[in-house]
């Protein structure tokens, strides 16, 4: 299990973590599939989570979710999101009883590829460059 603060963008299904769903955005259609952006968080950080298909209706704010083999990368709209992807799975494991923070938000960080690293593979390694916003600009904190 990884904490959200430790996730780094990569083109791999390598994220296993547990978090609570704080807020769901409106579902939209992407081709024939429903998709829905949400804010999720654990004790260390928050991140935007993209739900796909039936996931959009299966989960509600307050649900505690467990993600296995998820991916943290840029979606078609060039937003940095966490999602289960085709190879990952997300399950509801509980409700309510999880502490969370809304800062930092890993999707609101600008990442840059580490230069000249990993030249023998195509995958770039990303490092944090700048904080774009301390918290989600799509789902601002509720106070």
């Amino acid at each position, binding site marked *: 299990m990884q904490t959200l603060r430790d996730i780094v963008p990569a083109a791999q299904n390598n994220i296993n973590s547990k978090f609570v769903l704080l807020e769901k955005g409106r579902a939209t259609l992407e081709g024939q599939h429903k998709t829905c952006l949400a804010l999720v968080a654990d004790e260390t950080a928050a991140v935007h989570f993209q739900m796909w298909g039936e*996931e959009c209706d299966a989960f509600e704010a*307050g649900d505690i979710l*467990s993600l296995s083999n998820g991916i943290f990368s840029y979606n078609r709209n060039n937003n940095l999101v966490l999602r289960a992807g085709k190879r990952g799975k997300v*399950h*509801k494991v509980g409700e*309510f*009883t999880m502490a969370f923070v809304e800062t930092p938000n890993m999707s609101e960080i600008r990442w840059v590829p580490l230069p000249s690293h990993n030249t023998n593979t195509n995958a770039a390694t990303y490092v944090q460059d700048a904080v774009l916003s301390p918290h989600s600009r799509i789902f601002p904190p*509720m*106070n």
Partner: protein
Amino acid sequence: MASKLIQIRSFDAENSLEVSLREAFQHLEPRLRPPFPLTIPTQEEYINLNKAILYGILCEPHLAKIHIKHLHAIITDGYCYFTSLVIEVVNELYGKLFDSVKAQLIWVTHEMVNVLAMGFDGLLVALLRQIIGGDFSDGNLWLCFEMVSIFSSKRDFFVEEDEPRVLTSALYVFLRLLADHCRMRNDAKIEALKRMEIDFCVRMLREKFGLCFQVGRDLVRLLQDLVHVPEFRAIWKDLLLNPSAFQTSCFIDISQLYLSRTSSRYFLLRITPEMENQLRFLLTRVKLGSQMRYQVWFGKKFLGVPERETLKIDIVRFICCAHHPSNDVIQSDIIPRWAVIGWLLKSCQRKVVEANVKLALFYDWLFFNEKVDNIMNIEPAMLLMVHSIPKYVDVTHTLLEFLLILVENYDIERKDLIVKGVSSAFVLLVRKGVVQSLDALICFDMLSPLHKQLFERMFTDMLPSLSKRNIVSLPSK
């Protein structure tokens, strides 16, 4: 094999209790059909056999009689492990169980009562806790009906078997539920249920008052909400005017009930385990300032429909009397109890619920006696009043006014006792340093001159020690 026990939605993770029961059943299924082997199982086999038989009873209604015979034949621990398993199922899974499984659960509960299984009282209490206040759904009313049926038919049995606690628990639950059910007039669906609940409670109060007395002062609080029901109006009159009608020699005046503190276990009876978990999490893990989302989730899940609002009364009693945080939590930045109560109070839609929430908050103040009462029960009201002064002075104002009106009117015949109770509460809260003095409360300008006068007149004896002297001796902040 899909679960026959609980409804699992496509994205739900497996539930470990369900898995352990189902696997035991799958593994032992061939051994669950007669003829049963005569060999004595090892401890491990015994545990798995208990699990398998429970799964069989709950999920194979047509074979339940065979399973229960099997259970009776193998039991060597007075059903202790078996009932503990059933209780786990109730506490963890009740809301997700299939309806047919719920029916089997009630059936096996009857069986456990009939054989006086060890822990059957805990099982009954666990089921009582699953009845949700302010919930008029068919499933909830069905559970009320099944439970009041058990208690009505087994009442004398429980008395003989010396199980008074389970009876007083049922009394507390049904009196509270009646407050909801009696508000629904001319509703055929609940008329029969209401009749059974009234009969059970009235018989308890009329015939076993000595037992009912053990509930303590909250018995009076609950009866008060039923005073418009003829049967309870008569009881209420006798309580006030004719205590000998209850034929309990040591009961001579209602003040004896006032002065007897209600045990915290009664408040847990009106909070489901799930609600309890969430409230305790909120009050031990969530920092002040970060509670908004949790409050929204809790509100949506448990208080979503207007009828559920009466639950707030039970929650306030639970927070005041059954959730006492440790010193570590009190000194930390975790959201304090008074803030959660403030949220519940501010969100009340109906005036009558708001008044009952305030009564729940102040109830232990009215009869406070340092020797039997706990300062933690009265602390939230005081802190809510004091901490609301800077931003929500209207809350402070209405609370203090409400308290004064209670002292004046709650029981005119026994006003001295109530003045003494409230004074003792104030004195102890200052003496123990919960607040430094009462100056902030009684000096603030929002209190109408009338109420200020009332306050001073009512508490002349205690005021000097709590106000003026402290101004001299304590440095102002």
